[in-house]
């Protein structure tokens, strides 16, 4: 199939060239066929994961960035002081920290977390909020099935209702 002008070649050489090229072509094609048919007859090589069926065994890597979560202890206590550093660091404005005035048992008035609002739909998972949090309140969750029918469901409140700050963390 090569179209070189070979004026200087004699008849016999042209003839030989014609067939050697033909043979070369067929050989390369057969090589390719051997690979594909080889895979056809080796079903062990199949790598498809059957996703909804393997949900029970499907485990994401520990560091998988599925969503931003706030971990709570068994007593419904979180670690967020409401300082707002995550909000400042977020490049897309997907975090809103709403604070409220709280009074400590000693009678001091401190800032406490009211609502930590997280817009999943705007999040780009850059990880700056988790990295910059001074009290390690935020973390990445493993959940990855985020599809919802209404966009408003993507706006989440990360702190659980009625949750309090963990005792060992000092409120500011």
């Amino acid at each position, binding site marked *: 199939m090569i179209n070189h002008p070979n004026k200087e070649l004699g008849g016999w050489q042209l003839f030989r060239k014609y067939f050697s090229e*033909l043979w070369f072509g067929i050989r390369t*094609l057969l090589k390719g066929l051997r690979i594909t048919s080889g*895979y056809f007859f080796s*079903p062990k090589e199949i790598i498809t994961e059957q996703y909804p069926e393997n949900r029970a065994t499907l485990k994401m890597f520990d560091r998988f960035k599925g969503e931003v979560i706030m971990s709570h202890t068994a007593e419904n206590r979180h670690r967020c002081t409401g300082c707002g550093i995550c909000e400042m660091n977020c490049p897309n404005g997907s975090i809103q920290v709403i604070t409220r005035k709280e009074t400590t048992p000693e009678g001091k008035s401190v800032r406490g977390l009211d609502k930590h609002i997280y817009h999943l739909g705007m999040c780009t998972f850059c990880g700056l909020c988790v990295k910059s949090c001074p009290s390690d309140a935020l973390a990445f969750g493993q959940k990855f099935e985020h599809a919802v029918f209404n966009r408003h469901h993507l706006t989440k409140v990360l702190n659980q209702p009625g949750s309090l700050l963990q005792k060992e963390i000092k409120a500011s």
Partner: protein
Amino acid sequence: MNLYDFSSLTQSIHQGLSAMMAPAWVTVTEMVLVGVVFLLFYALVGLALVYIERKVCAFIQNRLGPNRVGPYGLVQTVADLIKLLFKELLMVHKADKFLFNLAPFIVIIASFLAIGALPFAKGLQALDLNVGLFYIISVTSLTVLGILLAGWSSNSKYSLLGAMRSGAQVISYELSVGMSLLTIIIFSGSMQLSVIVDSQADGWWLFKGHVPAFIAFVIFLVASTAETNRGPFDMAEAESELTAGFHTEYSGIKFAFFFLAEYMNMFLAAALAATVFLGGWQPLHFGGLEAFNRVMDFIPPLVWFFGKTFALIYIIMLFKWTFPRLRIDQLLTLEWKYLLPINLVNILVVSWVVLKGWHF
């Protein structure tokens, strides 16, 4: 060989009908019967081939293929067909309506016509014309008419480009298809498909016809792949260049017709190759191995026929999923500089062999 003879069955149906009604009505009834059977067969084979193609390509590509609808995804193609039936039929602005609607039917009728002449088993053949081979070649080449019309009437440049490519391609490769079949016509001395099949009772032409028959077989496979517009010769579609070529503007069931016709043409090409080169429904026989031949005889001819056909279809599919697409000028170079000259020389050699009586 006499184990599975369908001619007595067909004869008895014919006699039963003749006893009931006038000869003219018998013909009509038989035609309707055959038509209905072939329609069912057509749909069934089409759906099966789509499924097989998907599975074959999936296994080649380390995938599982369709596996959601039905066991092993068997009903997937039916589901797709239903989806296509419900889709809106789009019409391009300023398209030639009549031709636009006509084109898919031409394509599908062309492939449908050819089935009639295929010998599925002894006595199981609707039309045993004495020019059967010629009939099939001429009827299948009608497909290009539909493709050209589809491309022209779509009022889309992509479609037109695809159609023009297809025209150039099919017309050139038609030559090679005909020429490679000519070798077998010389060998068997007949164009009647039943005669060709019978002539292979003691061995398939692929084996009996020495090297020339093998060369003709390879050329036929390549040329018929090209003629059916399948990869690596899918110039007319050329997904990465022309988006979908001649059927870019078609949707819904009209697209399904093109789709089905493509698979049917592939089936026809493979069936023809199986009939002509691999003995059709004739079982595999080796001279001198009586016991082996006996065992082979017990396998029904339909199994032989479809087994051979699907083996060839597998090869054609393997071509598509392995090779890159050719460019249009390379495609024509391949035909006019390689296949055709080799074919012509091959025919000369075959004639010589037959004259000297060297073949088995």
